[in-house]
């Protein structure tokens, strides 16, 4: 956030110059430049590779997994990892490796779709609040205050318990509760952008509010949003796992990682592998998104750090 001011000030001057240009792209740091700085951050690169790997695993899950996610192996209960069951089997004879592989689909789907919903809501409401100010701003900010005053997890489990137990309802719950922080960030950017000359110029040219907000201001407010959204995918995956663990997420035999951890808790002493592998999958995925988010922040704004 603190890096925003010098950035937007510079952008404002350049933008005012080619205001009548037809396709106006915000002059952000060149993409190649950002990529070059991002590439230098080894942890971020490792995180990116892991996520690409995970996406491939999710796409090709039926080819990778030796068993179906609900396919029982008769007689193989809570078996430790072996060559036939790489991650062992669970209490009812399901192959843990196959379930972890299929679980990538659920986690990524929830993380990405819910983040997309949250980003759209947060962007629109934050932009509207920051751009129009006054009563509109007051109303939107009071609404965010109300929702922020309920501790996030309580809000999420309360809504989830009403919406029923499925992957889709978890997506809706996390999407519609995840926009609050983003809304504040976007609003703050718009408040500072509002004072710049190029916005003034766009207004005096008689452009519609929609056009000014989305074509002129939004591209300049996107940087913190990109970083926030990246980290948010990770934290939404974490929240999904927590909801599944608490029993308000998808129901068995859905191969959600959080649910697998919950199923393993009563047999921790005899079958720790049932808990270790899905737990590790959640941990590595979230960590990868944290690394990518950190790397993006440093690459987009080299002044910080």
């Amino acid at each position, binding site marked *: 956030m603190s890096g925003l001011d010098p950035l937007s000030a510079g952008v404002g001057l350049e933008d005012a110059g080619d205001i009548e240009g037809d396709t106006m792209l915000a002059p952000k740091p060149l993409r190649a430049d950002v990529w070059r700085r991002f590439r230098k951050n080894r942890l971020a690169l490792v995180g990116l590779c892991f996520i690409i790997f995970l996406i491939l695993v999710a796409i090709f899950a039926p080819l990778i997994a030796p068993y179906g996610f609900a396919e029982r192996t008769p007689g193989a209960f809570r078996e430790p990892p072996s060559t036939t069951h790489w991650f062992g089997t669970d209490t009812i004879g399901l192959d843990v490796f196959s379930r972890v592989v299929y679980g990538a689909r659920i986690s990524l789907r929830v993380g990405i779709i819910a983040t997309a919903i949250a980003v759209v809501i947060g962007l629109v409401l934050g932009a509207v609040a920051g751009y129009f100010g006054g009563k509109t701003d007051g109303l939107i900010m009071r609404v965010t205050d*109300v929702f922020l005053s309920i501790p*996030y997890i309580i809000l999420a489990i*309360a809504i989830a318990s009403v919406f029923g*137990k499925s992957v889709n309802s978890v997506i809706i719950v996390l999407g519609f509760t995840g926009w609050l922080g983003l809304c504040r960030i976007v609003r703050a950017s718009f408040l500072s952008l509002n004072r710049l000359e190029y916005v003034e110029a766009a207004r005096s040219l008689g452009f519609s509010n929609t056009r000014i907000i989305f074509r002129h201001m939004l591209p300049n407010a996107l940087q913190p949003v990109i970083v926030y959204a990246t980290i948010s995918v*990770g934290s939404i995956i974490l929240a999904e796992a927590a909801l599944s663990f608490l029993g308000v997420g998808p129901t068995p035999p859905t191969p959600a990682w959080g649910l697998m*951890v919950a199923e393993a808790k009563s047999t921790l002493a005899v079958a720790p592998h049932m808990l270790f592998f899905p737990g590790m999958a959640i941990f590595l995925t979230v960590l990868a998104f944290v690394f990518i988010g950190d790397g993006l922040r440093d690459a987009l704004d080299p002044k910080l750090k």
Partner: protein
Amino acid sequence: MFAYVIRRLLLVIPTIFFALSFLFLLFFALPGDPATLLAGGADRTPDAGVVERARERYGLDDSLPQQFVDYWGRTIQWDLGESFRSGRSVNDLLGEKAVNSLRLAIWAILIEIIFGISIGVWSAVRRYSLSDKLTTIGTAAASAIPVFVLGFVLQYLFAVVPNKQGWPEWTHLRTQGLGPDTWTFFFIPTGEQWRYLILPAFTLACVSTALAARMMRGSMLEVMRADFLRTARSKGLNERQVITRHGLRNAMLPVITLIGIDFGTVIGAAVLTETVFSWPGLGSAIADAVGERDLPVLLGLTLAVTIAFAVVNLLVDLSYAWFDPRIRLGKDET
């Protein structure tokens, strides 16, 4: 200052009112019979008798506005109703659970402050060294571990393994429940109590400690570039004094903010930690209440937690002015 506190408190009241009303209406305004929802949930067919009892107890035959007015009429007098499942007064339940949560929270916050700040400072002083890099990775990792997975891993390492390997008795930690519930000065465990406390406390503290350490490192690096630190060095103070007396004090401010902002995360972590360790606190009670659709318990405990949340945020704002006299509250609001 005084006017500012009053204004902030007045703003908290409508916020909490709308938040609680939202949760209340969430259960009632949605399609489906609320009695069925309360008694068993949308996805199950509950026992007819349970549905009937739910309807009677909540006066669900009344109109929704009437129920809403009744709910707030009771809540304003701090009558939080009775648990739908056990019939216990929610006020009693709240008192009992809050004490347990508070004890756990005190230890988690102590761990967060002591470890978070010292790891952060240690890392900042050795910037770019190998140990700094490892600590940075370590704190990132600690902030990405799901609380409940960490809880179970610690249970395995410190309770299951010592048992299996036959290690001496003093290494065995307990993983379930509150324990003998013996304390001195409210929060210091006595006797066997520490065995029950230590794992949940560290589990609860882990994420916020990592975040505090990261924040402390960044803040310390900022301060170490400041002119007054160079002045302190040039007047001949040794490095330790420079760091602790001059650097640390100035670098603490953002971290204190974080501890406040982070309180929501701590509550989330508490729900999971208390569930994992069967610690009978507010968090596990709220999780249970949601699972059982025990609306009075859910709303009552949430109300208490939300008020605590608001008070902590207010205290954090006030502490800025106390720690940094340059900040004047209430003059410049965004």
